[in-house]
């Protein structure tokens, strides 16, 4: 396995290697990044099917806009982990700060600990599985995709959400505008089981409740008097 040490090379050198040289190298399917020390944009813009282990804490935008790569952070991360991810997997063994998985379009983001504010904001198709709890205003304007929260959700969950679906095991402090709890169906139980399995979390899908958009904000003037 190849090792890249951020005490010896810069993040810029690392990313340029990952983008330009790695895809052309035969045999390298797995590599580790040492001494990340909370640096930003580590392994951002990946576009190759490679397994990356980040041995420590990452800063903002770890795995940002990821395609194809499977990235594991053996520590905590800052804002915007896996923001706008397209495919692949990003797993955070620790905690994640704000805007985890923001605007993600595909792939799977797994956070084993808690996340802060606005997890899954404007998500557009990504699957997010959080082992712990999520902060306030998570899932704001969530358009598509699924989010499984094994712990609690904060204030304003799913405010102004569109077609995304959330599954919450713990307490929900409050729902945002247009978000509502709905009955779980067999399809929902199957989805939760599959997502928990993907993350490696052992919970009973029966413990989860479903939150989705009520779709009352889809047309802002629906109830307006149009006589004018």
């Amino acid at each position, binding site marked *: 396995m190849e090792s890249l040490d951020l005490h010896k090379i810069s993040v810029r050198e690392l990313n340029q290697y990952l983008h330009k040289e790695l895809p052309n190298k035969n045999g390298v399917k797995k590599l580790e990044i040492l001494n990340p020390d909370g640096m930003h944009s580590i392994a951002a813009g990946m576009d190759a099917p490679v397994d990356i282990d980040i041995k420590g804490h990452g800063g903002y935008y770890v795995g940002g806009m990821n395609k194809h790569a499977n990235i594991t952070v053996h520590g905590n991360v800052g804002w915007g982990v896996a923001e706008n991810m*397209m495919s692949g997997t990003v797993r955070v063994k620790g905690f994640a700060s704000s805007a985890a998985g923001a*605007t993600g379009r595909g792939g799977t983001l797994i956070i084993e600990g808690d996340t802060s504010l606005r997890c899954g904001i404007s998500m557009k198709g990504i699957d997010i599985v959080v082992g712990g709890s999520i902060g306030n205003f998570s899932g704001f*304007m969530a358009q598509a995709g699924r989010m499984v929260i094994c712990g609690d959700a904060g204030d304003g969950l799913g405010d102004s959400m569109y077609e995304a679906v959330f599954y919450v095991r713990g307490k929900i402090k409050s729902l945002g505008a247009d978000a509502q709890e709905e009955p779980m169906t067999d399809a929902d139980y199957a989805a939760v089981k599959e997502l928990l399995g993907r993350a490696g979390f052992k919970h009973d899908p029966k413990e989860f409740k479903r939150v989705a958009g009520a779709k009352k904000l889809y*047309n802002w003037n629906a109830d307006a008097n149009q006589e004018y």
Partner: protein
Amino acid sequence: MTKKLVLEESAGFDQKVIEYVHRASATGLYEIRGMGAKRHLPSFDDLVFLAGSASRYPLEGYREKCTTTTVLGTRFAKKPIELAIPITIAGMSFGALSGRVKEALGRAATEMGTSTTTGDGGMTPEERQSSKTLVYQCLPSRYGFNPDDLRKADAIELVIGQGAKPGGGGMLLGQKVTKRVAGMRTLPIGVDQRSACRHPDWTGPDDLAIKVAELREITDWEKPIYIKVGATRTFNDVKLAVHAGADVIVVDGMQGGTAATQTVFIEHIGIPTLAALRQAVDALEDMNMRGKVQLIVSGGIRTGADVAKALAMGADAVAIGQGILLSLGCNSSSYLHEGAHIDATADYNALGTAPGYCHHCQTGKCPVGVTTQDEELELRLEPLTGAKRVKNYLKTLNMELTTVARACGKSNVHHLEREDLVALTLEAAAMARIPLAGTDWIPGVSRF
């Protein structure tokens, strides 16, 4: 005997205000419309050039060389953009505009050696294929935003605000959210689509610097990164954009257009382009970054004279939106079909307006096929015809720009300077900090 009619209009409650109150009381909704501010504002019209005479040496207007080459993104990007003219096409979305219009803009920009810009909703294949130089916007909504298109772009414009609506998000009404538009934006067909007013994954100037760095990392530091702000606290915003690592700063004044925004935003939020431009230049000069970070100004740029004045005040380039749409035929009484002019007046009337007054982009029923997603209406704009008209417009502006520059004795349009200008009104003199014509007086700076 017929009684004499005495019709004294109230200054406070004039016909416009009466109409506003009647409309508001009938609908319970604020008005959403297209175009930009309609109120009178201090503008480039309030400045004039001094040009050459005995004390200055003019260049011959048609024959002597006058360079217009414009280079953007020299601060950090490995691949700065070189444009043939300092006039660019502003960001306008596929969704607000049809795919055919985006193609026309790309073709015209390419023929003129300048750039065009995507908008909310992402990049369409039509505009990428037709545009030699394409600027890709990163907006708060991130609709249609993806790393593949990011890498295909020639520059990235991180949009914080827009002159027509600083502090406000976008609104694309459901009639324009067709199957294709909805698919690109990952939204249900026909929803009244809102765009967020701020970015989802950063807050504040220090975060912005980290976001800019991430975009550079993803694109291997190749592409120039623009930061676009709607004109409000422009002096501070420009300084913060420089701090965040921008290669290019775009300042969009309140005359800037929109396809659909609340009238209260369009008319009452932001500052005029004239005032914003001076603040932006002051900020760059204060940081000794003039020329290192390029400045693009937009918002109500219409003519070659406007371009020349913007450059003289310190802009490196301008961006035009509304003027470009007008050149395509917006607000024209007819549209061109196979070389023939087809009258569209009845379609304007159906919208409750008339050619020359239309601001109904939000309806998606553009009578000349420019701001529409309607399959029949969009055919009213032929891409090749539209491209030719936009090209002609840009060419005219560039000719006016160079002829003014030559008259001022400049062999390069970027050599135009503030000393070439005087102001015709006190407001313009104060905002632009250009002396009132015939005096040395700059209100707030020098004594009369």
